[in-house]
């Protein structure tokens, strides 16, 4: 049974993965985390990134775009942060959060793998 734990473990096998979390964006709580550490507190990252998602949702409403967010990419000097929203009926309002080391990551591959992990959580 693919579950939160296996999904997060799989996320850490993505090249360059530094940490991952499954986050409830209405409350800002991380339902599960893996990796991270003192340089990257995933509980804090989870709470903070809910504001990112909320801001984007609001912006789309302002623009009148009738669409859904699939993922959000934030590029830092040394890291990529990927946010992927879950869309199954029972898990709306949650997202997967993945931090990657920019030097070691293949962005296109990472997006693809994260999409696969999301779909496995929901079927």
């Amino acid at each position, binding site marked *: *049974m*693919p*579950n*939160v*734990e*296996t*999904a*997060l*473990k799989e996320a*850490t096998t993505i090249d360059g*993965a530094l*940490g991952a*979390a*499954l986050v*409830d964006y*209405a*409350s*800002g*709580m*991380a*339902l*599960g*985390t*893996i*990796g*991270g*550490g003192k340089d990257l*507190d*995933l*509980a804090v990252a*989870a*709470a903070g990134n809910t504001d990112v998602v*909320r801001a984007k*949702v*609001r912006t789309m*409403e*302002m623009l009148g775009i009738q669409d859904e967010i699939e993922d959000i990419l934030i590029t830092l000097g040394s890291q990529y942060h990927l946010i992927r929203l*879950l869309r*199954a*009926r*029972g*898990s709306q*309002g*949650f997202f997967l959060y993945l931090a990657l080391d920019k030097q070691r990551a293949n962005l296109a591959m990472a997006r693809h793998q994260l999409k696969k992990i999301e779909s*496995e*959580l*929901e*079927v």
Partner: protein
Amino acid sequence: MTSASIPAQVPPPASSASTSVSPLLTRLAEERATGALLRDRGTLFLEDGRIVHAESPATPGLEVLLTVGGGLAPERWREAVDRAGARRQVARFLVDSGSLAGGELEICHLAAIFDAAFFALSPGSGPSRFRRGATHWIGSVRSVPAVAVERETRRRRELLDAVWPYPRLDTSPVVPREAAPGQTVTLRQRSLLRHADGVRTPGQLAWALGRPAFHTMLDVRRLAAAGLVDTPHEPPPTRAPVVLPDWVTRHQPPDVALLRRLRDALEASL
């Protein structure tokens, strides 16, 4: 990067005993106890000291989250309870019968645990009792450490007040206000506002929407902060009657001589 876990990497502060949300829960977790911790506003189920389920009359349970909020057909839920409730494997039945993806169920169940625990552990939830050995018919889905639940409960209390520090909003009827020209209201907010009829409280809205009650309270606080929901005014403090000095209240005979002199002076000048 070893095992997936509910974030527990932040060690509890050394003074956790004094700041503990529930000293009894802390002790039961240390004892690795199994059973049900009953409080006025909810019940936590423990297995080997970890929390495996929680429910509270203040918030919709897993059934409502899955059927109203998640689109699971109510008959599928009833079937699972009828056929697997007695052997305490409702969760497993839902997944094995194909009603629900394992991941979906787990996510919803975790959300329900933290939501119910927030109310069960709220201050004023009364005395705690522990029924050793009691288990819940939902069966095993996922367990979370008690310390993670306590930490999240504290974080949620602080978050509510950080957003908009008016606790009366949590229990008062939600009264929508018209959006300012050009103000954006998101889809999620709109569906909440549509159900807000000026009578329902955030808790009642949570049932109608099939969303966790804490989430609804937080949404309402955000809406109030944005001016899209009325913020109930705190009742005005009952003002102590102003005590006037004696010389004002005491009945005194008018100074007739003074009044005459005043009248004479006025008449002379007219």
